[in-house]
């Protein structure tokens, strides 16, 4: 009896090993091309397949929402995902590894910037074609990418530097309001600020500057926290930054020029999908540059032993201030994008719930890890959308999941892993003949 069970298990293990072996030979470009094929297939045959298997329309998010809303459609949703997404990816991954590796090698032989550009274009292409199906997908993707920026920026402080900051929703609010005030005042006719001061045609070109201004304003706000918190060693940051978040919120609520508690609308529609994508890529690139430099690793040294860092010539106070302002900048940029994606902001958004959300993304994904933050932000944003039909129960399931992660992996799922794009796009070893 026991033996049979063992054999069963070992057989199953063999199968999974084999599958893993097949797929370990697939380079990154293979997965991308698989996804591209999948989204193209969906674009062309999606509605047809959906109606054939009895779905009312193309499932918005991989069928999860349909399954929860109308459970009897579960088999159809699963079939849809299998045919449209998994089959193309599987086919390319399974049968293409030889030429995919050749392709990966070819791409690597191009100049570095061109390789990167091609990969980015491919990724954007997938995103674009997939989102093209519905406005809901576009919105979900934009908010997801903004969550990536915010999570990464918080990970710099809570993960890499090992202090606990609660002020990121506050920075986000500052960024959102400053950039919105600029774009609305300059490029939109609005009852708060009157007619546009500059020709609206200039708007999209100057939008990056508005975002940067929002980020810079958030950095100035961060200075208010950093000066008292980093004067001496010790855990003041958590408390001061929490207070800061509430103060920012109530200041905005009482600031009638920007609409007070009612919020502020009529932001021009500048934050389209490519814009958000470019900012997200820039953020990942710059933050990853920073944390992999010896200057950035000083944050790790400070976290692990501040005294030793000082004794090894690290200017700890300056390093902490810089990192905090840098992190606030990106939270501000995320806020600016957020405001222009929704084209409306109100102070209520930037409260304790936002804080809980971004903390969850950081700790779920993994501390001290760019991969982790991307993973945390993407998976939790999607999960929140998947579970939307459950309404309140969503707020039981997500925290439970987090508790499990915290118990079994206290630093998060992909913690302490260095993000390396060059390594990611390397060709994989091609399989031996007999496999």
């Amino acid at each position, binding site marked *: 009896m026991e033996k049979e069970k063992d054999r069963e298990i070992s057989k199953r293990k063999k199968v999974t090993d084999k599958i893993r072996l097949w797929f370990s030979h697939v380079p990154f470009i293979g997965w991308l091309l698989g996804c591209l094929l999948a989204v193209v297939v969906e674009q062309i045959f999606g509605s047809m397949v959906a109606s054939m298997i009895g779905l009312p329309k193309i499932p918005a998010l991989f069928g999860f929402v349909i399954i929860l809303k109308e459970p009897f459609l579960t088999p159809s949703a699963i079939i849809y995902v299998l045919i449209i997404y998994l089959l193309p990816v599987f086919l390319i991954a399974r049968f293409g590894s030889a030429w995919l590796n050749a392709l990966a090698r070819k791409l690597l032989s191009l100049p570095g910037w061109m390789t990167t550009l091609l990969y980015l274009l491919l990724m954007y292409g997938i995103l674009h074609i997939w989102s093209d199906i519905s406005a809901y997908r576009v919105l979900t993707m934009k908010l997801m990418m903004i969550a990536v920026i915010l999570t990464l920026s918080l990970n710099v402080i809570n993960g890499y530097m090992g202090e606990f900051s609660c002020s990121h929703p506050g920075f986000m609010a500052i960024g959102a309001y400053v950039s919105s005030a600029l774009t609305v005042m300059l490029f939109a006719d609005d009852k708060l600020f009157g007619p546009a001061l500059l020709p609206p045609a200039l708007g999209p070109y100057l939008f990056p500057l508005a975002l940067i201004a929002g980020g810079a304003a958030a950095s100035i706000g961060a200075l208010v926290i950093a000066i008292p918190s980093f004067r001496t060693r010790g855990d003041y940051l958590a408390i001061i930054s929490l207070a800061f978040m509430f103060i920012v919120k109530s200041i905005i609520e009482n600031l009638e020029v920007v609409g007070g508690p009612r919020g502020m609308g009529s932001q021009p529609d500048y934050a389209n999908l490519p814009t958000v994508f470019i900012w997200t890529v820039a953020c990942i690139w710059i933050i990853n540059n920073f944390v992999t430099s010896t*200057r950035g*690793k000083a944050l*790790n040294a400070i*976290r*692990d032993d501040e005294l030793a860092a*000082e*004794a*090894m010539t690290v*200017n700890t106070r300056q390093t902490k201030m810089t990192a905090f302002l840098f992190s606030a900048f990106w939270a501000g940029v995320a806020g600016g994008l957020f405001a222009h994606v929704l084209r409306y902001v109100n102070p209520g958004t930037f409260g304790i719930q936002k804080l809980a959300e971004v903390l969850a993304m950081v700790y779920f994904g993994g501390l001290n890890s760019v991969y982790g933050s991307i993973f945390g932000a993407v998976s939790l944003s999607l999960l929140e959308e998947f579970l939307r039909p459950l309404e309140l129960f969503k707020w039981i399931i997500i925290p439970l999941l987090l508790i499990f992660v915290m118990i079994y992996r206290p630093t998060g799922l992909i913690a302490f892993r260095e993000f390396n794009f060059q390594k990611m796009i390397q060709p994989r070893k091609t399989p031996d003949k007999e496999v």
Partner: protein
Amino acid sequence: MPLLEVKNMTHYFGGLRAVHNYNLAIEPGQIRALIGPNGAGKTTVFNLLTGIYTPTQGSIRLLDEEISGLMPHQIAARGLGRTFQNLCLWRHMTVLEHVKMARYSRISYGLTGAFFGGAKRRGQEAEIEERAYSLLELLGIRHLADQVVVNLPYGAQRRVEIARAISLEPKILFLDEPTAGMNPEELSKTMDIIRKIHGELGFAIYLIEHRLKVVMELCEKIQTLVFGEVIAEGTPEEIRENPKVIEAYLGKEVIH
């Protein structure tokens, strides 16, 4: 002119006088030691010299520049490298990263390099890395370069601390009980290493040590500290024969 000159340094922790009227002159290239019973104030002296505490009174001059009152990182950058009595390593970082980190003050690529990369940063990082590897080679731990320090055995961790301190190009290296908790074999290896780095790099070394065998063999000059006060200073022979030292400290131990 001595490299480091300390005059009448006194330090109080609240009401406790941890160091009293301490004087010191370290010559370039000298190896000397600070000995004394537990709680005598030896580590406190090191912490004062490296800027972790600011002395209540007295002056500390490095190459005729007053350094008391500077931040520890400034003092370190001026050439005082140190190790700690109870290892202070960065638990999530690799050996190589430790040794590279001590070059922090010499990095000049600035925030632009840190945020956007570029040729200057690549050049400097490569240079730092190459240097780090050669120091690891010197200390015989090059093969551990990519290991995270917490996974290393105790002896190797001690070496990482030494490598890190050397990496900042010290004029004086402060070693706080470098052989604490080592067995005789590790002990003699560590002594060889101290001799080797001193021979190759030529900085002065100031060490705190409990094992008199180490002190007597390595050092030109020894100070004995008891209750924060120096009760004797001299060559190993002089210290060995000094009745005050024997009474206060050596009486309980055997000298070889």
